[in-house]
């Protein structure tokens, strides 16, 4: 399974990547999460402008057999929602690319650095 080195990870199976501006971060679910959920049919998030705390639920991912909550890796404000998610299966096919979920304007960039490294996350899922 693929866990890119340039991303940080959470125990809730999200990934986050701080962009070059240093305050905007892209959030999605990990390759492991999409594979555990199976065929994803619908993604729903809170609207742009919503402020979320760290670990707060900001949406849901619905697969054929289950629904999982999405947890914010760090505190911030939702500044963009991926409109391509109308075709939710892209989360399965490209969890780190086209299948990103939201962009957050993060409160503290340092909080991102404090999250799990790819090695820590691999250890967490027993890989």
């Amino acid at each position: 399974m693929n866990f890119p080195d340039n991303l940080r990870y959470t125990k809730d199976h999200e990934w986050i990547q701080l962009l070059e501006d240093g305050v905007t971060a892209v959030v999605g679910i990990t390759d492991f999460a999409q594979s555990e959920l199976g065929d994803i049919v619908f993604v729903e998030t809170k609207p742009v402008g919503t402020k979320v705390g760290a670990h707060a639920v900001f949406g849901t991912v619905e697969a054929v057999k289950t629904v999982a909550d999405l947890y914010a890796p760090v505190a911030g404000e939702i500044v963009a929602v991926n409109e391509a998610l109308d075709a939710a299966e892209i989360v399965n096919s490209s969890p780190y690319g086209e299948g990103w979920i939201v962009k957050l304007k993060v409160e503290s960039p340092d909080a991102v650095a404090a999250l799990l490294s790819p090695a820590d996350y691999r250890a967490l899922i027993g890989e």
Partner: protein
Amino acid sequence: MPFIVNTDADRAEMLRKIGVGSFEELVVDIPEEIRLKRALDLFPAMGEPEVQRLLEQLSMSNSSTADHVSFLGGGAYDHFIPAAVKTISSRSEFYTAYTPYQAEVSQGTLQAIYEYQSMVCRLYGMDVTNASMYDGATALAEAALMAVNITGRNSVVVAGKLNPYGYQVLETYLEASCERPLVQNVIEDGIGSVESLKSLVNSETAAVIVQQPNFYGRLEEVEEIGRIAREHGALFIVSADPVSLGMLEAPGNYGADIAVGEGQVLGNAQSFGGPYLGIFTVKQQHVRKIPGRLVGMTKDKDGADGFILTLQTREQHIRREKATSNICSNQALCALQAVVWMSLLGKEGIREVAQRSAAKAHYLAEKIAALPGYSLKFSGPFFREFVVETPVAPSKIVDALLPKKVFAGIDLAPFGESGLLVAVTEKRTREELDMFVQALASLA
């Protein structure tokens, strides 16, 4: 009631089949301290003829529409049910009150529910109908919860006169989820005042609810009410009687986001108040927030048509406390009776039932209004039900007509209002209507 065999030999066979030696071994997991260690405190045993006589005597003390002329309405109506409804719905392949738990094994049941959903969608002019809910009142309450959930707002406004029992169910459901109680606009001439509604609906309103026809049988100004709801971004919830839709505009055509109704009138007997059938329909964009079960159509691996329960992932057995609602059942048998009734009558038949009911109700209303001492309480349009102001207390009229095998209607005094609520269905004959008018005249 069929005779169910249950001999010692049968019980031994059942125990053997499941691999336990005795009844005691079967219940070994039940802790000693909670076991009842004496015989049940029951009446002495009776023989079968005695039991039958007792039950017959008890049932004869009921008064029902089978041998009474009924003008009772207020949410449950005496429409005609063709014998074919019972014949088809009581077939052993269909006859269970249970929602299927291994649903896809029961293709026939799922298909019947699918057809029910499709017909109700057409009747209400809506995109999606669920497999049914407990009754009209709980469907209405679930609609309000759904609106609170979708909009993230807390205030629910009632426009016009809801059935008072429906109103109470709504209050009970909302108590736990809303910070503020229901808001009700002013009622004038038996309908909600649109002017007074304007000041009640604002950016905190989750939903505006209207019942059409309303509790008094009167027609609310639904288009204007819907416009006010939309203006403030509130959802528009309509509780509509399905038979009335044979004549009246479908809620989907005047902007309802959610439309609900009491489905008893679709081929289900009044049965002293239940079991009934809650109709629940939404527009497509709300499909993932709909409570309850939904049957969909798909193809199996060989490409043949098949039916499945769909969008189940938001239900209680998967989402637990985060489920969209706590309903994970439906009124399959009542919905089956409804779909058989609708199939037998068809579009034209339902229109005819509505038109005949309305025509007879208007005939009766005119005759009663012409009687000395009697008048119609409200002046505007109504469907098959109306309120009469009477020269003697409505309770006296109800009591006086009961021995004549007539249910005169609903006395509104227990609701803190004057008048007798009279409903007329297509079943009433000219003779019955004229007899009722005469009986009222003699009481004046």
